């Protein structure tokens, strides 16, 4: 384990990974409890459009991913509240629509190569100093939001209307939550990849829910599962030359299966 830490790229990947595990699992708790699980998948694919634009136009792909994912999150909220559409159908349409758009942009720009592949599945080798900086800055802001409003977000997840009648600014906080989720997902695709980040956001919480404990403990268990999966997954990925995102996701799914069996009623 110590040997791998001698490499700069592994240090960068671990810092990024620990940040992302923390953010994904904390925001994931609210996403799962609000039955928003699919939004993470959709935003991950929208982030890919940003990556495609970045790769083709020569901008920083992660910054572009953040911008497009946020715009997509707002579009989802708008469509959901302004038209008579099923919200899961909105998510499904935007998911495939985004992927199609990303593929077209990349192929028109002639950038269909390994670098796109690394954004699909995550690659610890490719995390740059700049990426770490972006993750730390945006990640800290997102973390601040989640910690400041965790009680309100929990109340909204429990019962949106009762929260509203208690004076909680439900619409505003919903809007901020999807924005923060969009940012977190865009930041994650470097390490975990856009096809796999949804799993890191949703599965640690679903695994933690199996233990049937209160809010705080559910969050802490979910955080622990996410951190463990990211660190253990990256270690395996280093020693066996496996793609990092896929290894991390298999770790977290293993934890989920164990949790499910341990708590079988």
């Amino acid at each position: 384990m110590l040997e791998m830490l001698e490499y700069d790229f592994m240090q960068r990947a671990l810092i990024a990974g620990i940040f992302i595990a923390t953010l994904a699992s904390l925001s994931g708790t609210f996403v799962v409890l609000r039955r928003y699980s699919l939004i993470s998948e959709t935003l991950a694919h929208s982030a890919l459009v940003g990556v495609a634009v970045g790769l083709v136009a020569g901008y920083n792909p992660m910054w572009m991913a953040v911008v497009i994912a946020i715009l997509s999150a707002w579009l989802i909220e708008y469509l959901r509240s302004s038209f008579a559409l099923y919200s899961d159908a909105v998510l499904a349409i935007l998911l495939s629509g985004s992927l199609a758009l990303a593929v077209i942009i990349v192929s028109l720009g002639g950038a269909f190569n390994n670098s796109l592949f690394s954004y699909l599945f995550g690659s610890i080798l490719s995390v740059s100093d700049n990426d770490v900086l972006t993750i730390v800055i945006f990640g800290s802001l997102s973390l601040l939001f989640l910690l400041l409003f965790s009680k309100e977000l929990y109340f909204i997840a429990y019962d949106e209307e009762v929260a509203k009648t208690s004076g909680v600014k439900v619409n505003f906080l919903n809007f901020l939550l999807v924005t923060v989720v969009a940012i977190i997902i865009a930041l994650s695709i470097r390490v975990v990849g856009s096809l796999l980040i949804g799993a890191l956001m949703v599965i640690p919480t679903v695994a933690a829910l199996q233990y049937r404990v209160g809010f705080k403990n559910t969050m802490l268990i979910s955080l622990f599962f996410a951190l463990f999966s990211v660190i253990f997954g990256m270690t395996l990925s280093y020693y066996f030359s496996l793609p990092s995102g896929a290894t991390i996701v298999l770790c977290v799914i293993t934890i989920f299966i164990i949790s499910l069996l341990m708590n079988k009623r």
Partner: protein
Amino acid sequence: MSLKFKLPIFDVENVSFSVRSQTILQNISFQIFHGEYIAIIGPNGGGKTTLIRLLLGLEKPTSGTIRIFGKKLNNFKEWYKIGYVPQRAAHVDANFPATVEDIVKMGRIAKRKLFSSMSQEDKEMVHDAMLKMDILDLKDKMVGTLSGGQRQRVMIARALASSPEILILDEPNTGVDVKSQQRFYKLLAKLNKEEGITILFITHDIGVIADDIGRLFTINQKATICNDPKKELSCEDMSELYGIEAHLIHNHRHEH
């Protein structure tokens, strides 16, 4: 009545509400004063829940005005003064990760300032609310594992934790056994008498509580207000006064 010198908690004036040209509530006016104990009855689809949703600001009236503590709904900010227990209260998602204490603590959020965690006062209020509802021993239990009656008391404790001046309950006894219901009505009456908390609730079993309630509203698109249900459950005199038909109560009593 000295209560009348104070501003009414709710002042509803000529309120109507319709959805897609279908009238749900028509020209309703009433006032609710501090310390009152009011039951709302009426047939399903008669607009009882809609009326409560209007009072809570969850729906906007098509016409008319609603004042809360003297302020128009849009300007009203002190939501902690109102405790709301919705109809589905007893049906919590069994997997939702919440202990009894987690739920009751939510009641303090309306009073919370940003950047501050639970103060000593918050903790005391949460403790008091659980004590009053007799659920202190359940504090660390997961709500999903409780009985309907226990959950109901948890939901009321949550509403009480913000030290409200009025409790609004929407058919709180749905899915609760008879014994728990009786206990529940005793608790409500006690809160009203001893704590002076105003109580407004929707029910369909008016017979059980007729002794305690001060006024009875019947809602079926229009409202009929019965000021002394003990003496005149028929409401006929009142209905003449208000010019509204009051056939509801009789029908309702025979239904059950």
